């Protein structure tokens, strides 16, 4: 399962950096790794922080930024989603959308704080206006595919387990 989840995150990072980066809206692009890692953290909370760290590091590597920047933001998002996954009923239909919107805001705030502290890039209040709204809207577009993929993975894993148990029973 770990390998499958890793492959999913790698694929998301590649799609993000090779394809989605060509479709900017208000300077923002869809970040498919964000809803994906939330979906992973909801189903397997123990993998949440690690998935966030891995997805963030991949993003840092592929986008050419400072290593650790997105890793930190996504680690925090993964941890937050994992806490949610343990404490609330994650099957509520609106939860993925609300969490993704909130995670987009959190990620933007974390990035802003880190950039201000480290003086890597200039940050303005305007970055939290229309661009942030565009980012939220774009990331919401990726919620359904990300959660559907994770559901498919869960279904696949359950089918294999049942088949395995059936083989042992025989």
């Amino acid at each position, binding site marked *: 399962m770990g390998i499958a989840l890793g492959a999913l995150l790698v694929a998301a990072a590649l799609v993000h950096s090779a394809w989605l980066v060509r479709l900017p809206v208000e300077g923002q692009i869809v970040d498919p790794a964000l809803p994906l890692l939330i979906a992973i953290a909801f189903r397997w909370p*123990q993998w949440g922080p690690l998935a966030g760290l891995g997805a963030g590091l991949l993003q840092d*590597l592929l986008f050419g930024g400072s290593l650790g920047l997105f890793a930190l933001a996504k680690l925090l998002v993964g941890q937050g989603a994992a806490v949610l996954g343990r404490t609330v009923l994650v099957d509520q239909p609106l939860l993925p959308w609300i969490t993704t919107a909130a995670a987009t805001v959190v990620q933007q705030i974390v990035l802003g704080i880190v950039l201000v502290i480290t003086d890597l890039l200039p940050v303005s209040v305007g970055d939290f206006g229309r661009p942030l709204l565009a980012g939220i809207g774009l990331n919401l577009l990726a919620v359904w595919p990300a959660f559907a993929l994770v559901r498919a993975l869960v279904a696949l894993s359950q089918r294999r387990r049942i088949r395995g148990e059936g083989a042992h029973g025989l």
Partner: protein
Amino acid sequence: MLTGRARSLLFIMMLLAVLALLTGQVRGEDRRRLGPITTGVLTALAPVHIAMARVADGVFRAWELYTEIGRLRVENARLREEAQRLAQEVTRLRETAQAAQRLESLLAFRAQAPYRVVAARVVGRDPASWFATIVVDRGSADGVVRNAPVVTGEGAVGRVIETTPFSARILLLSDPRSAVGVILQDSREIGVVEGTGGDDLQVKYLSRARAVQPGDVVITSGQGGVFPPGIVVGRLASLRSGGEVFREGTVRPAANLGRLEEVLILLLQGPPR
């Protein structure tokens, strides 16, 4: 399964590691230093990344091409419309220029003629091919009378054969019923020009005794009482024998009788202008 304490510990360790990585990057001179692991990851991902980027390039190029084709179609339709509009404009301007040229020559003739002149527009033609008549938009209300001579800037056209208050029918020189007394300008030979029903006219009763050459300008002689003397009828095109005493010839009319649009009606009875 990890306990809550172990999970928290793991998270704090990861957080510290990321912060350390970030701090190291920020403090470093190049702000992005890849270790062997990250280089390895990038190297492993590079072929897939490049392939995906190429696919995206292809899709985007195809999309650009598609939108470009659409844009070109719209542009093409617009340019076609523009060309059509300009062609219509050119036709209209050409028409206007030709009309101006015709009116200019009519005006020049009118200035020379010592008679009252009525300018008329051709509004109808005889649909029967064996008669050559036209209808103009001036009639007896304008003073037009029967047998009034009709000319253009190039030369004689015919005579009025019937009038209504607001129109008049003109018998063209080319009509077989038409006959006009003429004189050849150079040889001063007298003859009669008659219509043939075709494009050319024929001149009759030219004396064999005088030297007449094709190319001689044929003008009205004033005999016959319709045309005043000196109006150009045409040019002698050819000569042939017309019997023992006379010769005949073909005259090419000066005015284009098949394509008349505006004419001048000379009112000889009226007071000189």
